[in-house]
């Protein structure tokens, strides 16, 4: 545990001093600021079922696919390429502590990015909002959506870490993470679009397809429904990916 804390502090310090993190943060805020701006413009044009914050959160997959691979790609691939991972594994710190420290620091950076995003709705309410009308920056939807980002982010970051473990090239790790995250986000929708009703032998896919519906999870969290199923999905997925990452790192010793 002592090694884990030291490693985590080191990883957080490295992330704070790395230009890569700042560039990813700038890209993230520019992307989300742009999306929020256009959501506000769209909401001002015509009545809509969704609030601007909800419309913005609906595009969570865009930074997930574009920014998160930038954060995770260097965690292990860069260390393997430069040879510092082998040196790190000769220390008393276990491979598990190394993997969990890198995972947790990346997850913290990812959550901090999303917390910075809350400045946009806050400033919008300050500038454009009317007292007593919470629709412009609906806090319940905002914090519910951020809870979803934090919980699903555990699995998404773990997938990125696993992809970084299996290759020496940072670019390849980012590409792998992009493909896996795209598959993870679109899997539920793709399975539901299969002609399950007409093909009887596909009937067993109905429930797993509903289980993997990422956008449904976001909708539930934003509505304040904390279902245990997505939490099980993201929790077990995180443990699986990190376990495989530990095995992969141990195999490279």
């Amino acid at each position, binding site marked *: 545990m002592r090694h884990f804390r030291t490693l985590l502090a080191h990883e957080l310090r490295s992330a704070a001093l790395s230009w890569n993190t700042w560039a990813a943060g700038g890209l993230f805020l520019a992307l989300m600021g742009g999306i929020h701006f256009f959501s506000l413009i769209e909401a001002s044009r015509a009545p809509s079922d969704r609030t601007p914050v909800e419309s913005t959160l609906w595009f969570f997959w865009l930074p997930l696919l574009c920014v998160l691979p930038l954060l995770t790609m260097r965690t292990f691939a860069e260390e393997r390429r430069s040879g510092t991972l082998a040196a790190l594994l000769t220390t008393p710190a276990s491979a598990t502590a190394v993997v969990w420290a890198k995972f947790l620091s990346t997850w913290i950076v990812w959550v901090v990015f999303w917390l910075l995003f809350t400045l946009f709705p806050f400033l919008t309410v300050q500038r454009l909002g009317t007292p007593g009308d919470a629709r412009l920056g609906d806090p319940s939807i905002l914090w519910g959506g951020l809870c979803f980002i934090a919980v699903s982010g555990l699995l998404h970051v773990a997938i990125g870490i696993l992809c970084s473990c299996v290759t020496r090239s940072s670019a390849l790790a980012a590409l792998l993470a992009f493909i896996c995250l795209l598959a993870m986000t679109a899997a539920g929708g793709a399975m539901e679009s299969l002609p399950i009703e007409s093909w009887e032998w596909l009937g067993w896919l109905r*429930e*797993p397809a*509903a*289980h993997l519906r990422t956008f449904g999870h976001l909708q539930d969290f934003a509505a304040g429904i904390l279902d*245990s*199923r997505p939490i*099980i*999905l993201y929790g*077990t*997925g995180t*443990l*699986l990916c990190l*376990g*495989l990452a530990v*095995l992969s790192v*141990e*195999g490279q010793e």
Partner: protein
Amino acid sequence: MAPIRDDFGSVRPIRRLNRLTQALLAIALAVVVNFLASLPEFRLRTTSLQTDATRLRPNPPRPSEPPGAAAQSALVAIKAG
């Protein structure tokens, strides 16, 4: 020059196989847990929804009464009885 003798050469494949077995077991466990979690039998309540709906049904609407009317009618009933 003779090749360096690998004392653990015969054990290494088994260790590798063990790692693969661990990975496969972990994947199988995660799939099974999520499949069970996705099954509808695990999320439906044991009591019937009809019973719950009856229990949670709101009280029927009452005709509007002036304040204190209920107490007065109760007092009249006590005096009569």
